[in-house]
């Protein structure tokens, strides 16, 4: 039996708290610098044994958030508390290593994750050497357990190169690699967008299973609202650096409140010829123009936009259990 991950967790507590996170990039040439707020005052919490989705279109800032959590980018403002400790203020290598062991990442394209000239098992052994440091025999046991959790065995991957696996299998192996350290949180950035439709649900089901069996939490970053609805407990919808709506996934996606969420939901191509699109859609200005808007970034396309939306920074409102950043709910 696989041990429960992250042994020192507190029961039923918050695993990670993201508070007022912002990231400003400076873009443009030397003389025409523009401050682009890629992530703007973003806050959310992930509980233990919870799948949390960060959804949005490209350029919404969702990957930037995940990079800041992983420590790959420095935030301009804000705090991240992981199990009560501020990760941005971590100084000692020991603390940092402990954090990296507990928070593991999976990336979008499994074909790019693995070096084609390196046997895949090396990645598993390397992770276990770096973080666990146990001997070969005990290490193999751990790796076997991690592979079993994703439905593979060590014999399946032994002496093989990435080219000998399909995309779905490679993505499973990269999940197994992350599980070797027995983490509490997996950060999965678009883990299924490069995987074929007939194999996609197997990966998504794996997240559910890992959550239910081992109490693992997952931050699932995606643009695909249908799989987000299927797999997650909570969701935050991002648009141009802001979280415009967050709450329980059923609430947010079944009865979307923010006009942007509504438009996004309507724009999904439903796999049902009886529910084709019957309205037309207006397409937006360029990305950068929307980032630079004052007030609500969606005001330029919103059917309900008022003068106030373009002037003031819109605060969050609690409506019916979800949090919505829209003046309609003032």
């Amino acid at each position: 039996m696989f041990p429960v991950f992250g042994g020192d967790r507190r029961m039923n507590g918050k695993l990670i708290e993201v508070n007022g996170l912002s990231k400003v990039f400076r873009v443009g040439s030397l003389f025409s610098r523009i401050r682009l707020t890629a992530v703007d005052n973003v806050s959310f919490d992930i509980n233990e044994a919870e799948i949390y989705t960060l959804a949005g279109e490209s350029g919404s800032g969702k990957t930037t958030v995940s990079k800041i959590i992983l420590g790959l980018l420095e935030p301009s403002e804000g705090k991240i508390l992981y199990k009560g400790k501020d990760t941005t203020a971590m100084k000692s290598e020991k603390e940092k290593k402990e954090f990296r062991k507990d928070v593991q990442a999976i990336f979008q394209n499994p074909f790019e994750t693995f070096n084609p000239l390196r046997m895949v098992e090396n990645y598993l052994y390397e992770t276990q050497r770096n973080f666990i440091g146990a001997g070969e025999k005990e290490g193999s046991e751990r790796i076997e357990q991690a592979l079993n959790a994703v439905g593979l065995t060590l014999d399946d991957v032994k002496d093989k190169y990435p080219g000998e696996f399909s995309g779905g299998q490679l993505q499973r192996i990269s999940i197994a690699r992350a599980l070797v350290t027995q983490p509490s949180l997996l950060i999965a950035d678009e883990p299924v967008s490069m995987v074929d439709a007939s194999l996609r649900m197997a990966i998504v089901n794996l997240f559910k299973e890992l959550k239910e069996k081992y109490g693992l939490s997952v931050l699932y970053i995606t643009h695909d609202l249908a799989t987000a609805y299927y797999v997650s407990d909570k969701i935050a919808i991002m648009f141009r650096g802001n979280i415009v709506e967050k709450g329980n996934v059923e609430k947010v996606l079944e009865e979307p409140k923010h006009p942007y969420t509504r438009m996004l939901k309507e724009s999904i191509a439903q796999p049902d010829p009886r529910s084709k699109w019957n309205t037309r859609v207006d397409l937006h200005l360029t990305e950068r123009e929307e980032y630079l808007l004052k007030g609500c970034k969606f005001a330029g396309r919103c059917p309900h936009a008022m003068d106030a939306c373009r002037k003031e920074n819109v605060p969050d409102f609690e409506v019916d259990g979800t949090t919505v950043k829209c003046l309609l709910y003032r």
Partner: protein
Amino acid sequence: MTILNTERLKAYYIIDVLGEKRYVKAVDNVNLEINQNEIYGIAGESGCGKTTLIKTLFGMVEPPLNVTDGKVNYKIGSEFVDIFSIDSKRMREIRWEYVSYIPQGSMSVLNPVQKVRYTFEHFIKAHRKIKNRDEDFIKPVESHLAALGLPIQVLDSYPHQLSGGMRQRVTVALATVLQPKIIIADEPTTALDVVMQRGVIQLLKDVQSSLKNTIILVTHDMGIHANIADRIGIMYAGKMIEEASAEEIFENPMHPYTQYLIGSLPKIGDKSYKTSAPGSPPSLMNPPEGCRFYPRCNRATDDCKAAIPKLIEIEPGHKVACFLYSGVIEE
């Protein structure tokens, strides 16, 4: 009325490995009948041969790809023309004027160091004589863009100044400016955001309903097929395994693979357990004997291992290649 058909089309990649020839059977014995004024969707996962199929339909066959057997016919006027038996000059005339192609990556179509206007001008010059620049080029292009709802300013932009969705729509405009009878589109919405996808699909539908022509659309996204296609063909490992109207494919899928494919689609409002087909698609270099899906099929019998089922019309307009429905063997 048929506008394009294929007869027992076989397109293989022939790779020379240390003096030994290896065949990748990307399109293996495909028969298609595509009608005028319809949108025909081709669905399947990566590596099933769908892109190879439409490249062959467009006559873009370059080594290592070879058409080893079969024909692709376009109906031009009242006669069928086999595109592999005509000379390259005639093919150049047919291409873009009669049949056009929208590729997947819009960035690689538009010249990055020239304004979009230049690309349009170059494209039109190759097919039409431009005597009076105003009459023969600017006016038709501007009215074409206006009809598609694109701003005229795109002509004076460089490709990098446009967003991905706008670039893809400019590519659609370019491919349709000569009013072709057949438009072949390869994953035109992949890599776009959902809202942009909707914009591109909206545009393709508008083009089709005003020109009354044929669109052959390849995508792996079943949601897009449901929204735009009239008929859908499902490909698996180089073979067409099912073909029916969009409603039939989604409501009454017959082939076990199609059933898995439709059954695994997540939908908002439905939290029931979805599962994928077990295993993964076969290598086209060495596909299984018999039905290519049998190693993953939960209803496979010994017959499936022994012979390849033929694509047969089981119900009016609904064709399936599976021994569950007919015993006909593909020769």
